[in-house]
């Protein structure tokens, strides 16, 4: 298909040639494939078709709900990770922020009698504050963000275990009912939040100054600084966004499973699944390019695989194997495709 892109002027002069319609189709196909999300979308649909042929209940409403609930919170985390990765940084502490945020909510409501909504906002503000500290240490004190957030990961995990004594607690009473339903427990709640957040962040990344500067500081840090972009501010901002979304996803998960548990919902699992989703979705770890929608589809693929294997009765541990292969294959494909894209062929 790449042959038709490097258009040959001789054939271009006769648009009514018999090959005209296929050429339009090919053009459309090319335009589609040029979208970074295309390859992962094809995979998502392919996996869906495969599981539907293998087990007829895959596409039932109940099961789609399961997949949506597995996709939503982690895709929200992945969206924040995408912004960070595009700006050339990473945060591996988001998972623990996700585990910590529901506890913050619990402390605020049950110990300090703060009303539900302000308590939720407080938990998110503290999550943002953790992101700020990550950003400050990485940008101002110049510690590589991988190391910063590795330290923060451990530190927060310690705080979490010490303050919770590693015991699960019940959802605070004032949030039961409407709030809990809207913030995670409702069957489609986390997916709806996920779609809203993905939509907003997609626009932020592709259509606003913030997004443009995020790409610029990730793609050419020196050049962006020389152009007067305040890289520190942009990156710290993205650390804060990622961490806030981590906290929010953790709250959604806690409401959904109807318990605040230090070992469920947060932790390494959500961090690495979110990074995997971002990478499978076409975001480069090197910075400068990435897509929020791709991360959503990437997360959807991972959720489909887990769910599908469950339905087929395949050993749950297989999913790790498959996830690993998916990451490696998509990274290799990414590398290859972006080189093709760069040279102007599909």
């Amino acid at each position, binding site marked *: 298909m790449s042959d038709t892109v490097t258009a040959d002027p001789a054939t271009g002069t006769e648009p009514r040639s018999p090959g005209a319609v296929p050429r339009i189709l090919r053009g459309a196909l090319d335009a589609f494939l040029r979208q970074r999300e295309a390859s992962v979308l094809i995979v998502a649909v392919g996996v869906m078709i495969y599981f539907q042929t293998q087990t007829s209940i895959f596409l039932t409403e109940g099961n789609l709900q399961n997949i949506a609930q597995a996709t939503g919170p982690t895709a929200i985390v992945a969206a924040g990770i995408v912004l960070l990765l595009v700006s050339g940084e990473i945060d591996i502490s988001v998972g623990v922020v996700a585990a910590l945020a529901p506890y913050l909510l619990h402390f605020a409501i049950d110990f300090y009698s703060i009303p539900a909504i302000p308590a939720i906002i407080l938990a998110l503000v503290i999550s943002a504050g953790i992101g700020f500290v990550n950003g400050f240490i990485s940008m101002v004190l110049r510690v590589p963000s991988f190391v910063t957030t590795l330290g923060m990961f451990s530190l927060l995990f310690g705080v979490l275990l010490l303050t919770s004594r590693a015991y699960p607690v019940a959802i605070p009473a004032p949030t039961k009912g409407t709030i809990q339903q809207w913030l995670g427990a409702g069957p489609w709640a986390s997916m709806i939040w996920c779609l809203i957040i993905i939509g907003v962040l997609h626009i932020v990344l592709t*259509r*606003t100054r913030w997004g443009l500067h995020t*790409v610029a500081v990730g793609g*050419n840090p*020196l050049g*962006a600084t*020389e*152009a*007067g972009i305040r890289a520190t501010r942009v990156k710290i901002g993205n650390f804060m966004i990622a961490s806030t979304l981590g906290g929010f996803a953790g709250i959604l998960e806690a409401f959904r499973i109807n318990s605040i548990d230090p070992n469920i919902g947060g932790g390494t699992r959500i961090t690495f699944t979110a990074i995997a989703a971002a990478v499978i979705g076409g975001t480069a770890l090197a910075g*400068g390019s990435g897509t929020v929608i791709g991360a959503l589809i990437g997360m959807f693929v991972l959720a489909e695989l887990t769910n599908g294997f469950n339905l087929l009765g395949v050993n749950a541990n297989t999913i790790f194997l498959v996830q690993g292969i998916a990451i490696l294959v998509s990274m290799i494909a990414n590398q290859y495709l972006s080189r093709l894209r760069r040279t102007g062929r599909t």
Partner: protein
Amino acid sequence: MTENATTPEVLRVEHIAKKFGALTALRDVNLHLRKGEVLGLIGDNGAGKSTLIKIICGFHRPDSGSIYVDGQEVVLRSVDHARSIGIDTVYQDLALVNELSVYHNMFLNREKVRWPLLNNRLMRRMAKQHLEDMGVHIADVTVEVAKLSGGQRQAIAVARSVYSDVRILLLDEPLAAMGAKEGALILDLIGDLKTRGDVSIIIIAHNYAQVLEVCDRVNLLQHGEITYDKPTSQTSTQELTELVVAEYRTGRANRNNNARPPAS
């Protein structure tokens, strides 16, 4: 344009010094630039050319010395601040972002916004118009700059600076790593700017023959000082090369002497 005492000075640099730790990059630099003039700044590697440019564009602060723009002393606080006064730089390492389109690069950090979104349509139109005005031919401004040649990227970087109402343009090795044809593209661009007369330019260059082609005057920077200042008409490539080579030879002799430990 010819050297003319009545043409006002847009930039004057006096007694600039800058150290990085134990390394003295600039000792005592004095330099001036007249309106519409193209000044070539030459010197061997490590003579302090890039440091000087980074001071004039607000990236570094000098340890001492003063900078005057239009006769007024200024303290440049940042690249942004220098740019607001009309001083802009095109770096050899190219400040363009490969992952962004031509027009986004043209408007980098000066984006047209229809809050909260970027006004991409307006930026595309303006970028296209401006590049055409400057005689830079880019078929499609929405293409990522990674796909363009080195010369085209440099031309876009220059066009970007000129577009932002720059009055003092600093070009750091504008012809580095560029073929003859692409180099000619940039030289033509500089020639056009000179004809317009509203932009004054300092070019840092290694290739003296090409410098002489577009410059009105040449300054030589050696060991952190300007040691030579002549109109282009009174110098030649050969003379400039000899000056630098002579400096290299004496420099090497000095280094050899210094490197020898004191007699024990």
